[in-house]
């Protein structure tokens, strides 16, 4: 962590606790020690409040959740959460025997595989258009494209449900102008999940765009001019010069967006409740439903499976998008 580490100089006796990381040659060693002691004490005083809250509301639940998944904890144990019996991997076995869980995993997989590339592509396109394409009104477009990111999913769900109303909604009205008889969207097993993918892209492309814009602005102008002098066209310049430089930023957004998408929950929870016929049931929603039904063990186990998937996806993305050289 420390960038201040200097090579140790002839440190002598009375070395008590920590190894010296800094040599402040002028001062006597006793003073140096107490100075470091003061620093460490201050550091722990500053760290203590956060760490106390963190231990109680993050570390404890993470460990507890794992233990819960290995026991038969139900909602009846709410007031006596320690009075449960250890059942080993039984919960996980039952989880993997549940066809509904696989169905939920498949929906989540489809959602991530379609929505993630679409979001990245849309965000990157918007960023390139704003950075390279236009000069005026950039702020207007940037704010407009980013606006959906900051919105409450509940409020957005209400609005989208009215937009998608089969008869009086705006979407089917517009489709009607072109002679298309729009479906019932959220009530149709074929369209409910795609609607949520579109909604997720709409809500998240702004984040990708902002990060890509920052990346694009850090590409040195001289590099682009050199490529232009060498006869590279705009298309080549983008894919051969700009894109490789954007790679780290793209990787970061892919990972963070992927983590969010694997936990896909809000949209089906507030818009369809997982229906129709489980067509929008996500893995996280499955886990939540288990919680709602009082099966705390199953909910925790499902949560841990999703966690493992998140780690796997993250590792995979680092492999895929890592610098080739």
């Amino acid at each position: 962590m420390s960038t201040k580490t200097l090579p140790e100089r002839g440190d002598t006796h009375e070395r008590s606790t920590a190894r010296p990381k800094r040599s402040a040659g002028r001062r006597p060693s006793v003073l140096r020690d107490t100075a470091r002691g003061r620093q460490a004490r201050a550091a722990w005083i500053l760290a203590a409040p956060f760490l106390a809250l963190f231990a109680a509301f993050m570390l404890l639940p993470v460990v507890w959740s794992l233990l819960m998944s290995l026991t038969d904890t139900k909602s009846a144990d709410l007031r006596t959460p320690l009075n449960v019996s250890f059942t080993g991997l039984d919960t996980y076995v039952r989880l993997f025997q549940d066809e509904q869980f696989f169905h939920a995993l498949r929906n989540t997989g489809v959602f991530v595989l379609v929505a993630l590339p679409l979001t990245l592509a849309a965000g990157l396109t918007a960023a390139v258009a704003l950075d390279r394409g236009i000069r005026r009104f950039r702020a207007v477009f940037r704010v407009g494209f980013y606006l959906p990111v900051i919105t409450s999913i509940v409020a957005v769900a209400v609005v989208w449900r009215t937009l998608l109303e089969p008869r009086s909604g705006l979407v089917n009205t517009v489709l009607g102008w072109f002679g298309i008889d729009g479906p019932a969207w959220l009530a149709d097993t074929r369209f409910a999940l795609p609607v949520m993918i579109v909604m997720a892209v709409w809500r998240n492309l702004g984040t990708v765009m902002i990060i890509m814009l920052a990346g694009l602005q850090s590409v040195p102008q001289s590099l682009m001019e050199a490529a232009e002098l060498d006869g590279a066209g705009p298309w080549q310049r983008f894919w051969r010069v700009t894109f490789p430089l954007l790679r780290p930023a793209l990787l970061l957004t892919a990972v963070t967006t992927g983590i969010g998408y694997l936990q896909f929950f809000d949209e089906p929870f507030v818009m369809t409740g997982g229906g129709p016929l489980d067509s929008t049931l996500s893995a996280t929603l499955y886990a939540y439903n288990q919680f709602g039904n009082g099966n705390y063990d199953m909910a925790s186990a499902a949560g841990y499976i999703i966690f493992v998937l998140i780690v796997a996806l993250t590792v995979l993305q680092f492999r895929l998008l890592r610098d080739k050289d």
Partner: protein
Amino acid sequence: MSTLSTLRTPHPGTDRALRRRRIRRTWGQPWLYIPLAGALLLMITPFLWMLSGSFKPEADIRRIPPVLIPTAPTTANYGELFSTLDFTGMFANSVIVALAVTAGNLIFCSMLGYALAKLEFRGQRAVFLLVMGTLMIPGLVTFVPLYVLVANMQLTGSLLGLILPFLATPFGVFLMRQFLSTLPDELIDAARVDGCRELAIFARIILPLTKPALATLGIITFLGSWNNFLWPLVVAQNESQYTLPVGLALASSGQSFTRFGILLAGAVVVLLPVMIVFLLFQRQFVAGIATTGLK
């Protein structure tokens, strides 16, 4: 600028090329504005629809085909929203919870962030890895034990149950540490030489310099808390603890869903404050997102 471009244009006859170049310099690629404007319209259509719907009388809402501009704009939806549901109370709850959570994160995350970025102590690396390691853990993994914990602390009946679990988040530490590492060490060393105490250095010298990072973290945390939905829905036991999203969600799943106008007015009440906050502070917000790469 016009003389410059005249000088640079070697062939005086190409007047059109000159003009095209000037347009390009001020506007970029003019044709791009058309697809971009179309995309912008698509992106903000839901908001326009929401706003217009919230002022529509019931007759307009049921109209087929729908109209975008209300024929007889009315504020009846808002009136009914605040009279049938305790939206004022929910609004107050949302504000209280968001302010408390924001204050907690600003204080605790900047403190730990400073210790991690600028102080040396044993276990520093372990603390850092432990806190950052939890960034990847999905909310649902901690959800169930957290609920059991808060229920046993008898906090499900109070706003404290909505606040406590979110007072100190790893993301805030990450952001503050990133920012604080960019401050020069000499500043701190100089203060030490002058005999300034360690905690005073943090409070009097460092904190005032972190205003931009604090602003970013504050806005992100406030918005996150304002929009937080699942936890308050599960923990809040009666209407006196509901936050706005909880109230709106329950209203929309209940019998009144056919009353689109009221729900859209509710959506406006939920969205408008964050939109105003965002538009006022969008510079800091965007800068924060761009530097951390996280939402």
